[in-house]
């Protein structure tokens, strides 16, 4: 059993345990913090897979920006305590459906992989961010620009949605 395989299993255990912890936690803040640990362990998987740029943007974007946004909204709304939310009698169907999805997914993976590829040998060019940037700004430049438009639309949407209605109405009344 190689070192990399041992590392994989430890990280996989952390990732699965934190995901389950997020599902079962009674406090929304704890759920968010479990999710941060999950994101960080996935980022270390990216490092193992020779994708350092993706790993660091995972930490910066997911564990940083997105989870801070989540925690901010949790504190704004005040949902620290969700006691009594999980009703075990209602959980039977979701658990069955989740188990079916898991079995199907794992079955399809095992069935289709065929000859398994072993990853772990280093020496490829994949970990070089400048080569990735070259592909991103040549082959994928149009999707990249569409992403910019998407982010702009999301920003405008968030501002419009969170704007309060009443002051706008009173301003209109003054102008008229």
């Amino acid at each position, binding site marked *: 059993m190689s070192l990399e395989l041992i590392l994989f299993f430890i990280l996989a255990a952390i990732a699965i345990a934190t*995901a389950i912890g997020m599902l079962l936690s009674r406090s929304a803040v704890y*759920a968010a913090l479990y999710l941060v640990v999950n994101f960080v362990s996935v980022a270390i998987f990216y490092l193992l897979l020779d994708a350092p740029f993706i790993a660091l943007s995972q930490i910066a974007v997911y564990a940083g920006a997105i989870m801070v946004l989540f925690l901010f909204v949790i504190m704004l709304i005040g949902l620290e305590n969700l006691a009594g939310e999980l009703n075990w009698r209602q959980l039977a169907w979701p658990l069955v459906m989740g188990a079916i*999805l898991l079995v199907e997914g794992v079955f399809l993976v095992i069935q289709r992989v065929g000859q398994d590829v072993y*990853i772990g040998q280093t020496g490829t060019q994949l970990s070089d961010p400048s080569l990735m940037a070259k592909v991103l700004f040549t082959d994928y430049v149009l999707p990249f620009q569409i992403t910019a438009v998407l982010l702009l639309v999301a920003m405008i949407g*968030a501002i419009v*949605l969170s704007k309060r209605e009443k002051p706008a109405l009173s301003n209109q009344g003054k102008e008229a």
Partner: protein
Amino acid sequence: MVPVSYYLILSAILFSLGALGVLMRRNALVIFMSIELMLNAANLAFVAFTRVHETFSGQIFVFFVMAVAAAEVAVGLALIVTIYRSRQSVDIDQLSSLKG
């Protein structure tokens, strides 16, 4: 030396846990976190395939998925805050006014 199928199985497990979270939690915020978990599981599969096929396309798709996730979180959390402001609750069982 880790076989790629281990990564794919881990990705399937994380995706299933995310789907389970969407099905079993009633709080809109926790459901949102579960959706993020599912996106992350898909990203892990993308990066694993990138490593197998030795091409950058998978990593670039992960990049785009992250951008879409950021946009989704911004709009979704604004929606949740707006719903909370009008209903004083983000329990999805109580948000049934669109039910016919």
